[in-house]
């Protein structure tokens, strides 16, 4: 009798414990995916910012694109940034294309980042140079 009671009680506790463990695991997986998504988004933005800073030092953008899409940056973000505390497993690819509407002074940038979990985020930006100051202006970001 005592054995049966104890076994029943243990079974019940085990079921409850398994339930708690399962929700906890699911929850932490969801949280990890969310964190990876954010990490990928910010990495993609870092890639596009790096590309913009490289383009700033190039006087004539047409020498970069020459009428076609060019991969400007490709590799691990930690290598591209040369230091800092960047996750070494984040890979970023930035491509630069001429403006789809044919405006000469406008470039379309696309940056994709993949993090270790395989999650990818992409940021697109179109930029132009202000004629007066030479500063780079963001025309659209999405």
């Amino acid at each position: 009798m005592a054995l049966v009671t104890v076994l029943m009680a243990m079974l019940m506790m085990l079921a409850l414990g398994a339930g708690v463990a399962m929700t906890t695991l699911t929850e932490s997986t969801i949280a990890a995916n969310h964190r990876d998504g954010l990490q990928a988004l910010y990495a993609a933005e870092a890639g596009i910012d790096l590309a913009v800073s490289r383009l700033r030092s190039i006087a004539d953008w047409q020498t970069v694109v020459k009428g076609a899409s060019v991969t400007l940056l490709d590799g691990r973000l930690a290598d591209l940034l040369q230091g800092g505390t960047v996750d070494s497993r984040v890979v970023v690819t930035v491509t630069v294309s001429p403006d789809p509407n044919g405006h000469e002074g406008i470039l379309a940038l696309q940056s994709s980042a993949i993090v270790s979990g395989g999650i990818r985020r992409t940021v697109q930006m179109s930029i132009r140079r202000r004629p007066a100051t030479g500063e780079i202006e963001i025309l659209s970001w999405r």
Partner: protein
Amino acid sequence: MKGRAGFTMVETLVATMITVSVVGAVLAVVGPAQAVVRAQGEAADLQQRLRAAADVLAGDLRAAGAVRPYRVGALRDDGLAGVYYRPDTVTALGETNRTYYLKPDTFELMQYDGGVSDFPMVEHVVALAFEYFGADGAGRALVRIDPGILIDGPWSEDASRRLVDADVERIRDVRISIRLEATASSLRRLVPDQDITFDVALRNLAPPR
């Protein structure tokens, strides 16, 4: 009587008492454990709703072409009603407009698309607040824009021919505060309210570099 098989009254009573106390002890442990299991699911749901709200708001504001601290659209437009600021409402203008606001009677975070679709996105939202930041006069540092100066003019007309305060066009960053409560009122003791405050910089309005 003597020699007949069976239990005496005392034996039966003692056995009953022992059984009752053992079962009672087991139930006393299992009861709260069951509440904890339900609370676990509730807490996970609360966090998921918080993530969903934060993600959608941040995503739309990040890519917005401009923001308005009030409702914009075909139905119950605030501008037409002369309202130019609500602390719990924000509109992200872009390819499609999105207005987010708190429905106070049902505690729902509503998403309005500027047309006819106005639906609840997250439930059991206790508080929702937006604060706005803009570039200061001299440098590129962000300073908080007091709600009072968002409605004091000077006014101009925007692309969609609505009146807009000059200080609203200075907005470069939005601070969002969301507070959620557990769905089941009986579990709010175990699952306390959670809040989150985060800033979103408007990427389309970033200063030139």
